[in-house]
């Protein structure tokens, strides 16, 4: 599998925790080649699993055995669940209301609830946590900075697909500015 990216940029973020979005988990869990390539590119990073991402990832496993396999996949030693307790949950919920208002006033009221909650949790942390997603619509430069863009070239006997993954950093200044502009 060919992947096009800037190794120097990945090296710069090698000490950061990376929160994985659902699409990345789907790709990693369904292809040995993808998983090997992905974990090699981010060889020095540890990965975090957001509770909403975990729910999105597991909800499609309607066969009990698949659910078990996907749950076991999530216990990979380089994956850690993001801390979640009552206090954090309350902060995520409060922040989600503010982010939803910002999106709404910027004409982005269609952003799914799950993505708002994931963004809200990312916004609670400082700069050392990054987010990697295949989603081009719901995580924009309105609240994030784009750190790097990776292109995965998936070639099968039947098809040739280019998959774009963006590494993002939540920008607190953009958030504060957007929030201050709300009516």
């Amino acid at each position, binding site marked *: 599998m060919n992947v096009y990216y800037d190794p120097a940029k990945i090296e710069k973020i090698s000490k950061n925790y990376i929160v994985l979005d659902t699409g990345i988990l789907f790709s*990693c*869990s*369904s*292809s*040995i080649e993808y*998983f*090997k390539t992905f*974990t090699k590119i981010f060889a020095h990073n540890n990965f975090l699993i957001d509770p909403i991402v975990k729910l999105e990832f597991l909800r499609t496993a309607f066969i009990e055995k*698949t659910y078990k*396999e*996907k749950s*076991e*996949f999530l*216990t*990979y*030693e380089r994956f850690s669940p993001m801390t979640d307790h009552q206090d954090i949950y309350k902060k995520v919920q409060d922040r989600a209301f503010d982010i939803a208002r910002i999106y709404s006033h910027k004409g982005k009221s269609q952003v799914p609830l799950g993505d708002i909650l994931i963004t809200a949790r990312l916004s609670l942390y400082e700069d050392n946590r990054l987010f990697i997603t295949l989603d081009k619509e719901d995580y924009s430069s309105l609240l994030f900075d784009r750190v790097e863009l990776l292109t995965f070239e998936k070639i099968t006997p039947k098809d040739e697909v280019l998959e774009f993954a963006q590494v993002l950093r939540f920008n607190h200044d953009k958030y504060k500015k957007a929030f201050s502009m709300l009516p």
Partner: protein
Amino acid sequence: MSEKTRQKNKTTKKKSYSEVLKIIETIQKKLESVETTPPSNERLLRSR
């Protein structure tokens, strides 16, 4: 959450790289078999 479930969650063993590769292999095989399974007669009839 019951105490039993809580204990079970606490003791969940982390999977190594090679262990995870085996899990992915299983998932991948299932997906490939679904993708290559020809539609059944019943589905063909319904699509007419």
